[in-house]
């Protein structure tokens, strides 16, 4: 017997509100409710952000008068080899953490899906990294990565007869060690979103699949993954944003070192702004990050939409 899957009919382009409704009370009401939030966002996010964009064209000297330098800050940032390295590290770290976090989150979600009380306790325990301050997590991982046999991970390696590894002090391994911590922090967050997606999967499909005797991989490939596509879309979008803005993890764990091997976009921008007092350069770096983040988000959304239509 073959399970019949009802395919949804072609989706019509949604026409949410007619022209009349846009001008009517129904349209005004949501905006009224949104107004306080929008006002707060305007004052605390969008205006400072606009000011940041403005400052990126200046040599910022508040008390001596800002000097217009045009695109100099952008040129300086983009031609600085340390910044180029940092952009490379950001991409490697961002993509690695995002994909690693999604895969680990998906596996966790599959393992911990269900209604049993014990699962709830385990899920809560697994979720803890998300609610723990990143600075605390960073310090904890510094201790775990301690490069002698006193460190937790190295003592484990010692039991296997392998020598201690200087995870954070070796430029070859520091970025990967940071990525591992990032995945550890991100996976439970993704797990919760994917769990919500899994809860919506039609159980009868699993039953039908079981009767057909399909393999676990086929079940994942043809039932689970298509069903949680919207959840994966959200996770992917959030991961793209979070991956690029990675800061605290690196700042606490390695401070960008050793030898700049874990320097990322935000740590570089922070150093420019607050260690070198180059606010114009830091603003330019932030604006570039904004542009790339927008590009990433739009791209991910485009592919998500295209996937939905298909």
């Amino acid at each position, binding site marked *: 017997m073959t399970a019949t899957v009802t395919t949804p009919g072609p*989706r019509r382009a*949604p026409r*949410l509100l007619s022209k009349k409704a846009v001008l009517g009370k129904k349209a005004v009401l949501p905006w009224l409710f949104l107004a306080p939030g929008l006002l707060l*966002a305007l004052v*605390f*996010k*969008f*205006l*400072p*952000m606009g*000011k*940041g964009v403005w*400052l*990126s064209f200046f040599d910022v*000297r*508040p*008390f*001596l008068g800002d000097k217009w330098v045009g695109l100099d800050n952008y040129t300086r940032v983009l031609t600085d080899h*340390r910044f180029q390295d940092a952009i490379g590290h950001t991409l490697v770290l961002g993509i690695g953490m995002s994909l690693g976090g999604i895969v680990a989150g998906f596996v966790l979600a599959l393992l911990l899906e269900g209604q049993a009380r014990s699962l709830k306790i385990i899920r809560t325990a697994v979720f803890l990294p998300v609610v723990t301050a990143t600075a605390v997590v960073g*310090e904890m991982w*510094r201790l775990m990565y*301690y*490069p*002698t046999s006193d460190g937790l991970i190295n003592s484990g390696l010692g039991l296997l007869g392998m020598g201690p590894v*200087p995870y*954070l*002090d070796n430029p070859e391994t520091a970025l990967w060690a940071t990525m591992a911590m990032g995945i550890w922090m991100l996976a439970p967050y993704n797990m919760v979103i994917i769990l919500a997606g899994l809860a919506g999967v039609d159980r009868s499909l699993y039953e039908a699949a079981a009767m057909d005797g399909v393999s676990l991989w086929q079940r994942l490939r043809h039932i689970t993954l298509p069903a949680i596509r919207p959840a994966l879309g959200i996770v992917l979008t*959030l991961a793209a*944003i979070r991956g*690029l*803005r990675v800061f605290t993890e690196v*700042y606490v*764990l*390695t*401070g*960008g*070192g*050793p*030898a*700049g091997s874990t320097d990322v976009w*935000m740590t570089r*921008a*922070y150093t420019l*702004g*607050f*260690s*070198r*007092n180059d*606010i114009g350069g*830091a*603003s330019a*770096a*932030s*604006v570039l*990050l*904004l542009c790339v*983040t*927008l590009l990433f*988000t739009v791209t991910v*959304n485009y592919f998500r939409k295209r996937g939905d239509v298909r």
Partner: protein
Amino acid sequence: MRDRRRCIDVRLRRGHCLAAALAVSGLLSGTAACGSGSGSARAGDPNTLEVWTRSDPDSAQTYKRVFAAFTEKTGIKIDYQPVMNFDQQLQSRASTKDLPDVMINDTALMGSYQAQGLLKPIDPASIAGHDEITAKSWSSTVGRDGRHYGIPYSRQAMTLFVRKDWRQKLGLPQPKTWQDTLALAKAFATRDPDGDGRKNTYGMVVPGSAQNGYVAWWGASWLWQGGVRIIEKDGSGYRPAMDSAAALRTVTWMKDNLFCGDNGVIQPSALTSVTANTTNFQDGNAGMYLTGPYNISTFDKALGKDKYEVLPAPAGPAGNDVLADGEDIYFGARTGKAKQEQALAAFLISPEGQTLAMTGDHQPVVRIPVNSTLDAARVRGDARWSVVQKAYEDASLQFPNAPDWAPIKQDTADSLNALFTYCGSDVKAGLKELNDTLAGDLKDQDLLK
């Protein structure tokens, strides 16, 4: 209906993503651009001074005691703000052109603040008791234009903290030279000075991260002792000096013997350590630490006074100069409260103000007094402070204060950290590159000669 809700969800989600993306990237520019304003109802009151210090909660208690005594004496109130992330907050306030009236912060930041126009120039003669501050201390507050931009408040010099009990157990003498230091460090790492039968001790603590320029701060004393200067005064300007033979010799020695030598001379993870997470000395697993005397109270509590000794730094090939730094009192530009500010500064440098700040149950905020009538060891009843005072007076050198030192320190730290990380690196080429970068920094400040 279902279709409609789904569609709204998608729209919200998309909007949310956009907002999130904007918010993320706005974070830094927001921090830079959005000042908190003075936030004080008393900011406009001419009889209230807003004072900022870069202090943790323990040091803040000492400052509170000092300011309370000042208010009692003069009637001028103090709106006191201890600020941990001082520079970030100050940049925020600067962007709103509303600075604190008085700031107490590191001496090495003066050039940076002056370059940004954040400070009011000071006439030493306008501060009562100015003649009790030595010429050496006053000379460190002269800006690029020859005027003073700060008032000395506290000074310190690095000294060597050594586990006395370990040294005596191993029967080794106090180190007098770099070679002695190295031999002692190796002995601490290999001869089980704590007697627990395990190889779990290290010779020396090093905060060697480039973050905030730490390795340049810690390494400066070694550079001075090797006869190195990072930049040198040249007429009315400066020139970079990290391509000298002395720099090559000193940095090579540090790399070969401390960072790339035998395991255990310095603590593991030194290359990513800053002072806050470099706790091996007080944790009892490292035997030496070249650092500032502000650690004395911490080490007394963690180890006990009898366990360690405070020694002058051992000499290198060019002497035993150490890095001196400290804190200055700065007046924020355009505050219009000159008389009150001068009164506060006069109190802070007076024997009474300095003594209050050096004593009490909390972390003292004046290390070596700038008031020449006071003796640090006598005020505290602790002879170890005379070692620090002597090091400051006789064998110390500050970072040049007139240029904007922040980029110079950061570039030096980035370069040293990279050279110490890659043991096979070409020191000469690395220092040449650093020298070119420093030349660029000086050129940006119109100071390159």
